[in-house]
């Protein structure tokens, strides 16, 4: 198991542009969106880190931008890292899919696409998971539904 400082150093070594916010309960790394796939690939394949388990993937709408969040775990060393990427383009948000690395990402990403409308490049089957095809993206902050939502 690597401690926080060792993990930070290894991630910096892989990708110098990564930022590490202070004071977070888990180790967080804010990765530029276009570097996310390459960094995750290294984190997974490197013998020291061996992040072989994608626990969770979700997204957050901050009104000004989207943040996609990945929780990676190593079943070998039991250490954990939180990767975050900012997507500034609200009109046509896009990011690389991690399905090639983690098959579990397929359904996570379909759900994120369904609820936030974030498109994942190279995703094998990017269809709506729950909602109808012509429905909006309900977890976006600017989502409005006159029929079903009672606003307050």
């Amino acid at each position, binding site marked *: 198991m690597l401690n926080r400082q060792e993990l930070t150093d290894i991630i910096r070594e892989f990708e110098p542009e990564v930022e590490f916010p202070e004071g977070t309960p888990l180790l967080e790394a804010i990765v530029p969106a276009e570097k996310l796939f390459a960094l995750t690939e290294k984190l997974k394949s490197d013998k020291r880190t061996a992040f072989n388990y994608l626990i969770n993937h979700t997204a957050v709408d901050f009104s000004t931008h989207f943040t996609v969040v990945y929780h990676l775990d190593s079943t070998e060393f039991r250490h954990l890292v939180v990767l975050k990427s900012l997507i500034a383009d609200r009109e046509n948000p896009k990011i690389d899919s991690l399905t090639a690395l983690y098959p579990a990402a397929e359904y996570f990403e379909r759900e994120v696409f369904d609820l936030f409308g974030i498109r994942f490049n190279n995703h094998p089957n990017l269809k709506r998971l*729950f909602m109808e095809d012509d429905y909006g993206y*309900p977890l976006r902050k600017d*989502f409005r*539904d006159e029929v*079903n*939502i*009672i*606003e*307050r």
Partner: protein
Amino acid sequence: MGVIKSMKDEDFGDNESLELLKKSGSNVFMTSIDAVLNWGVSNSIWPLTFATSCCGIEMMAAGAPRHDFARFGIEVYRASPRQADVIVIAGTINHKMAPILKRLYDQMPEPKYVIAMGACAVSGGPFFYNSYSVVRGADHVIPVDVYVPGCPPRPEALLYGVMQLQRKIRGESIFDQEDPAEKLL
């Protein structure tokens, strides 16, 4: 007439008008048949195994030995709506669940009863505002007999709701049955 042996009518405190709903009036023959029939029906209401969220945990606790549903004749959870008498809507009903709930209700044989358990099933509860997916109360979908408020209600509250349902059943008459669809909002 005391409907529940272990609990006096005045202990219910509220809705003492329930017994006034008795439809068969004072006809001795009819009331005797109703009394026997309703005694049977009200003491063996079998619930459907149906729970959509955390209220289901409380419903399971109500069925477990500490609270022991079965004392009141809510005897055994049936996995098929064909064998169930009451559906306890234990949890949030969202728009995708609504047609399934309606189908389950339609598949239950008469006489059938509905208990709306918890804030979500009563009114949408915590999801009333700003939710795109939740039906504001199960009574938009199927007619409800007893509402049990709480988030989630304790097993005692569900037991109380069940006892109220038993009182309601004992006020019924086979000669003057109401159409459950008329109870819909």
